[in-house]
């Protein structure tokens, strides 16, 4: 289902495949502050969609609703055809294994080494793997992000960019079908930000994932987005590819690209 109240633009990757996420009429408020109002959205398989919006516009709330960290006031969020707000805890956990989440703060477990951080999801959800297989997977993911030598280091010993890469490796270790990125390049210098963007795209191609990316970094957005959704006043106000939205006549949309 496409959004009805959205200003449509052309989309760089117009190939339509199955919907992995479908949101209909999502409402979410905190007290009297209505953050999302009748929000509609679709993520297709293999697609990278960037959600743009001002600070406090509800972008992070949106992806937290998708993963079930927040319960919406009303509306439906179908992930792999299952409506998240209606699922039991066990059903939700089974969906969560297939959806990776990269936190803005990285959220590495700071009392664990890098190895233990990566092993943590495996030890809980891949019980059939022996010690050697776990080690192989950990090293494969660390090599993917170019940091195999950090395996025995603590998160406090890593730089901001390295933490982001390790967090990305941990997100990917269960080989999820969807990845939700919460401002993946915020707080990084432009060069590291570019490297992270390239890594995201490279890993997306390697593991054939679909992604929703929350970002303010327009270089990252231009580089990675197949489609951009502009979130204004709690609704998907405009939608299209980067060039299309950059040249958009509506000043509210255009202002993001100045």
């Amino acid at each position, binding site marked *: 289902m496409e959004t009805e109240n959205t200003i449509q633009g052309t989309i760089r990757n117009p190939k339509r495949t199955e919907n992995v996420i479908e949101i209909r009429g999502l409402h979410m408020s905190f007290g009297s502050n209505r953050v999302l109002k009748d929000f509609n959205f679709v993520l297709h398989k293999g697609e990278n969609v960037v959600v743009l919006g001002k600070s406090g516009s509800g972008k992070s709330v949106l992806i*937290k609703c998708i*993963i*079930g*960290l927040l319960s919406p006031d009303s509306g439906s969020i179908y992930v792999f055809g299952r409506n998240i707000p209606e699922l039991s*805890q066990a059903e939700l*956990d*089974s969906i*969560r*294994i297939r*959806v990776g*989440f990269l*936190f*803005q*703060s990285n*959220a*590495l*477990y*700071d*009392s664990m080494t890098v190895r233990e951080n990566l092993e*943590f*999801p495996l030890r*809980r*959800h891949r019980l059939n793997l022996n010690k050697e297989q776990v080690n192989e997977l950990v090293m494969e993911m660390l090599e993917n992000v170019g940091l195999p030598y950090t395996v025995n280091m603590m998160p406090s010993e890593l730089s901001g960019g390295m933490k982001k890469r390790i967090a990305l490796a941990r997100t990917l270790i*269960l080989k999820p079908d969807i990845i939700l990125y919460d401002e993946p390049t915020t707080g990084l210098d432009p060069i590291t930000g570019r490297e992270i963007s390239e890594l995201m795209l490279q890993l997306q191609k390697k593991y054939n994932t679909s992604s929703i990316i929350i970002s303010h970094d327009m270089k990252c957005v231009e580089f990675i987005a197949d489609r951009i959704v502009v979130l204004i006043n709690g609704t998907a106000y405009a939608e299209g590819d980067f060039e299309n939205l950059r040249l958009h006549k509506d000043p509210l949309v255009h202002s993001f690209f100045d």
Partner: protein
Amino acid sequence: MPLPLSTRKILAETGALSRFTGKFFTTGIKPRYEWNELIRQCFVIGYRSLPLVALTGFIMGLVLTMQLRPSLVDYGVESQLPAMVAIAIVREIGPVITALIFAGKIGSSIGAELGSMKVTEQIDAMEVSGTNPFKFLVVTRVLSATLMLPILVILSDVISLYGSYLGVNIRSTTSFNLFFSQVIDNLSYSDVIPAFIKSYFFGFAVGIIGCFKGYHSNKGTEGVGQSANSAVVVASIMIFILDLIAVQITDLLGIN
């Protein structure tokens, strides 16, 4: 007339703590059980508290003996010093002081650790990876605190009595065998068992309050400090309240 804001806050917090405690029981009894984390927490909470508990226990026994001695000498009952110190330590001072030290070290550490995990989204990260953070973080820590404190109290009591033995020998000479035979002769099950049972409740209170404060931490790094601080304060007050209740129960049951 509406209740004052501070009273309403205390009532709301008490309600939230009660719900949190209820969740501990309903979540804790369901599989999957986090045995590895429970054992790790028992090591962290129990073994690492031992040096501090041992040191404070030793000093407590020594000082108590030295303080009591002059009064007992005045009444001519100096020979009752081992019995008096033993009963005071085993029944009351050992469990309460050890629990307060435990609240200071473990309550604050749990409050700060979970608070820090909360504000840096580590708890959310655990949840989105399909792990129940309440079960992994809260249930294991509360159970470890509940199981470890009674053991620490027993060790603290023994070390306190050894400190008392040294205290007795500062001004007079008493053999090790004589001192401890007097201690054992004067202690009864009614001294040991209620003290042992209340230690479990003290441990539970320290664990659940530390976890509650940490788990509901907010306001960033400032909130982490507040969580650690209030975990110690509330747990310490709760230890005294539980001690008062325990005394009333043993009194009502005639266990004296």
